[in-house]
């Protein structure tokens, strides 16, 4: 106790004034310090841009047969060669990004919507609501997700919408658990009690008071969710359980898999496209995580 009295009083006047920046500016600065995350973001932008601009940049249909099959990359003016049906692989991959991104994005959106709603309600209300919702979550965790998605797609029509919904329905459990944990933690904090004491309703507390504070981990998770949804879409269309009239990366691999041993590039290139997209999403996720948690950055 004696030491306490001897410590000199803090010299407030000597302290340099701290420049306080808008949290978003601070966030951007932290994110831009992570080069891998910037690279990920740029790759992602490039892929989205090529998906959006595909009809402008490239004339022709990805299903058009343009040349002899199995033409190697670079030969006869086809950058990535042609596939087993004589379709231009480059055109197919650029067009394939549209279905992959659209389904991946929509499925991730649905995943987050279901997961967040269930997790928020379970974590906020606790008690029997929590009990029931967690049992439902466990139920969906027990069924192998891809198997269930395959069954769902085959039961209903194999369209892009069905595929997106099927992926969303099987993959929300992780988001729900994360959201539940965050809501359970935050609901005990002072400012939530303060909001309740001035008469805020449950609905307002959940969506306007707790949710904004629970967002950081959920946003990081969202980047990964998009990546996982894209992998899911690729697997389903690879297995032929997707719209046969829409070109996608997984379908391209599935269509050409029988010629793998002799013409490996037809399977390699679409796979590279999937790999790069998902890699970009996980780098973005890492960057967001670092930017949201400055303390972790030293590790």
């Amino acid at each position, binding site marked *: 106790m004696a030491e306490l009295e001897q410590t000199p009083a803090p010299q407030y006047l000597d302290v340099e004034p701290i420049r306080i920046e808008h949290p978003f500016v601070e966030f951007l600065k932290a994110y831009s310090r992570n080069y891998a995350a910037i690279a990920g973001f740029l790759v992602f932008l490039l892929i989205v841009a090529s998906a959006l601009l595909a009809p402008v940049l490239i004339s022709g249909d990805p299903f058009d047969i343009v040349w002899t099959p199995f033409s190697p990359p670079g030969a006869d003016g086809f950058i990535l060669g042609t596939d087993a049906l004589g379709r231009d692989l480059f055109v197919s991959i650029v067009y394939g990004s549209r279905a992959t991104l659209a389904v991946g994005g929509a499925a991730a959106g649905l995943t987050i919507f279901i997961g967040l709603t269930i997790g928020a309600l379970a974590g906020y209300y606790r008690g029997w609501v929590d009990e029931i919702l967690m049992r439902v979550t466990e139920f969906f965790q*027990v069924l*192998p997700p891809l198997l269930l998605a*395959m069954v769902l797609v085959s039961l209903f029509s194999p369209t892009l919408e069905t595929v997106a919904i099927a992926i969303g329905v099987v993959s929300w459990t992780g988001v729900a658990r994360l959201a539940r944990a965050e809501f359970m933690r935050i609901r005990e904090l002072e400012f939530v009690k303060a909001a309740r004491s001035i008469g805020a309703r449950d609905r307002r507390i959940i969506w306007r008071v707790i949710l904004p504070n629970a967002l950081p981990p959920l946003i990081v998770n969202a980047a990964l969710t998009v990546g996982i949804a894209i992998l899911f879409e690729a697997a389903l269309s690879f297995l032929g359980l997707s719209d046969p009239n829409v070109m996608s990366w997984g379908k391209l691999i599935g269509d050409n898999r029988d010629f793998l*041993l*002799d013409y490996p590039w037809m399977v390699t290139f679409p*796979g590279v496209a999937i*790999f790069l997209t998902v890699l970009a999403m996980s780098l973005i996720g890492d960057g967001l995580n670092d930017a949201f948690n400055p303390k972790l950055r030293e590790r």
Partner: protein
Amino acid sequence: MRLFTIILQRLFYACALLLAVVVFSFVLLSLVPGDIAETIAGESGGASAEVMAEIRRSYGLDQPFYVQLLTYVGKVMQGDLGQSFYFNLPVADLILERVGPTLLLVVTALVLAILVGTLFGVIAAQKPNGMFSHFITILALVGFSAPVFWTAFLLIVLFVAMLEIMPLSGLVDPLTEKGTWLWYLDVAHHLFLPVLSLSTIYLAQYSRLARASMMDILGSDFIRTARAKGLGRRKVVYKHALRNAVIPVVTIAGLQFSHLFSGAVVIETVFTWPGLGTLAFESILRGDTPTIMGILFFSAMVVIVFNLLTDLAYRIIDPRIRMSRTA
């Protein structure tokens, strides 16, 4: 005594979950647009009205929906998963015939991923900023981002097309005599590529996880105490710290078992592995409803049993969890 009640409670939950899976899959697959009787008749090449009525009667399709559901649930409880439309064989027999190869694939991949992943993580944690640590970070990113079937194809190109040292597909060379040691060796040879492709994803994740938890633990008080009382570095790392670093890996591995099963479906179709995954995929394409329901039920059961086992496993690894009521 306490452990016993916990196990009983878990078993009760497990049975309730399984019942839910059975009801869910039955209701879901009854939503199939179209007439199941026509699917069955279609397999035998179309049929007249009398035959259709006969099919409806023998499969119980003329009964009200809830009767069909209750009959199915009752049968499942007795271990009867119904009759496959396509093979015209009991679904349970079909599944039991295929379960061996799948478990061989999945369990080998899982054990490999946990062992090698933990080992990598532990090695990396010794030098948090060393070369090996960076390698693991990159491996984890790559492992997460590469679609499992694509990894498999790249490995096929490398090992089958270029090096020509691995078989392309199947469980075993049909010419090998069953039961001999050559047969086992040949199975192991065929197992190599599927296991490698399947375990890469998980291996990468686990090594990152093990590295993080190992670093956490190496900085904790009890490790410092152990070092201070003069224990060697090696002993502290591999005896005291390792035990704790494994816990999160086992936890995640348990939670991910159903995902591993999903991966197996894809890998099995790539390597034409005669397991449940190929059966599931083919049954879905054929619209063989009883088989699909049976596989959903069976895979849920395997996942539940596996979750129970991991629960027990980390109660054994970590005495703190053993004492507390809920994990």
